[in-house]
């Protein structure tokens, strides 16, 4: 087996306990689509409560990495350890139960269901009771349903969305839908939260707010967050470590400062103005 990249590679905040094993440990991950190496030899380690950023040009393979981590696509190569456990061969649902939750670049809400039900579906495995208890309304049904209701509203309150609980998710404005997706992902009690362009379609002030919330989520739930984003304000604002992907390969890894000033990154991704701003 390949040698582990020394830990913490991306954990840049020594005062926080990142744990002895990283939450996510990816080795030589790769996938091909008909000859196209969408992700190639991808290695990354993420600490237990770290906020990490994955950036790179369009079509670099960022979303594909998420899809590999959630087994929407099956990797052709590589090993992924979640909290020290090999996740090969696990289904998307199993991976979720093991602690990986995500949002989608193209929002995938349960549009016709209410906001609360969206979150409650996220809570599916958190408050379990058997089909029998449901059918015959046994006490465990009542207890868990009440807990689920309270928890759902509690989670919605992170984004101040309790008042929308009864609305159909599809009728929410774009930005609210993105936030709801995050809440739903959180409801599954993840150890690692994957956010795919959470700020897309938000204006700068909304983005600023989102940034605060992401940080708060990490602090309250003590989870690791890996996010993809093209909004450099957000990435540079909260990511403790950043990996840059291009043509499926990592071209740079490091802190904000290192990335901002990396000429390869500027050339491939940030561009002149981006450099100036950053």
């Amino acid at each position, binding site marked *: 087996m390949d040698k582990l990249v020394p830990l913490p590679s991306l954990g840049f905040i020594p005062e926080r306990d990142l744990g002895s094993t990283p939450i996510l440990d990816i080795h030589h991950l790769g996938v091909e*689509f008909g000859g196209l190496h969408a992700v190639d030899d991808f290695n990354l380690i993420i600490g237990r409560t770290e906020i990490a950023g994955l*950036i*790179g*040009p*369009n*079509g*670099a*393979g*960022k*979303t*594909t990495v998420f899809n590999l981590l959630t087994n929407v696509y099956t990797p052709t190569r590589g090993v992924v350890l979640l909290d020290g456990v090999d996740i090969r061969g696990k289904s998307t649902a199993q991976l979720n139960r093991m602690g990986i939750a995500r949002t989608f*670049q*193209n929002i995938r809400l349960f549009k016709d269901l209410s906001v609360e039900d969206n979150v409650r579906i996220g809570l599916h495995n958190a408050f379990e009771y058997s089909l029998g208890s449901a059918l015959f309304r046994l006490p465990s049904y009542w207890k868990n349903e009440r807990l689920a209701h309270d928890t759902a509203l509690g989670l919605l309150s992170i984004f101040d969305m309790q008042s929308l609980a009864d609305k159909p998710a599809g*009728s*929410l*404005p*774009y*930005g*609210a839908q993105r936030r709801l997706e995050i809440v739903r992902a959180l409801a599954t009690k993840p150890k690692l939260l994957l956010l795919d*362009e959470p700020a*897309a*379609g*938000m*204006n*700068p*002030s*909304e*983005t*600023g707010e989102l940034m605060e919330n992401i940080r708060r989520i990490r602090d309250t739930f003590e989870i690791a967050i890996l996010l993809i984003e*093209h909004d*450099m*304000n957000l990435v540079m604002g909260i990511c403790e470590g950043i990996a840059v992907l291009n043509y499926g390969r990592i071209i740079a890894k490091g802190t904000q400062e290192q990335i901002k000033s990396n000429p390869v990154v500027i050339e*491939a*991704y*940030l*561009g*002149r*103005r*981006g450099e100036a701003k950053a």
Partner: protein
Amino acid sequence: MLEVQNINVFYGNIQAIRDISFSVEDGEIVTLIGANGAGKSTILKSISGLLRSKTGDITFDGKSIKGTAPHKIVAQGLAHVPEGRRVFLQMTVEENLDMGAFTAPRATFEDSIANVYERFPRLKERRRQIAGTLSGGEQQMLAMGRGLMSQPKLMMLDEPSMGLAPILVEQIFDIIQELNRAGTTILLVEQNAQMALSIANRGYVLETGQIVFHAPSSELLTNDAVQKAYLGG
């Protein structure tokens, strides 16, 4: 060139647009900014005919286009690059671009497509790929490229920079300016208000379906309230 007068638009019985009027002059870049759900996309959809306004009038190039079928409006030289890309997922990149040129004269097709490929080399690389498997940003480029193919007089862009890498965002804004210099009028909806205002002549600020503010961009850029609400200042 485009004159919108007192339109009111509903989704079922929810009113999304309340009595909005504005205009875009020939050769201008005008931008609409506003929070999520303010009704920006709804306005564009009403102009291109996908939605109907209950009242008021919309004139384009001197002719009323209210109630006209969308395909006729497009044929008059008004292109709409919709929100959320809306590329034809089962078609290849090239077929998508071909669709963009549906109303354009056949003779200019080769030039137009070469032009698009030049601006977005990634699309050229992926010309045979099924659009549905493109990455988000690639689809966004395709949507923009497809809009360019029709060589419109007025182009309405709904969040063209969404999901694009910073380097491409710059490019997109460059392209918009270039198009504008070449004579295309632009109506731009953007979340990246900073950049939108920096290239626009004028801007309208939208809140819950109403225009609350209208000024030249330079003024908007320095306005405190706008700064706070939309520029993250």
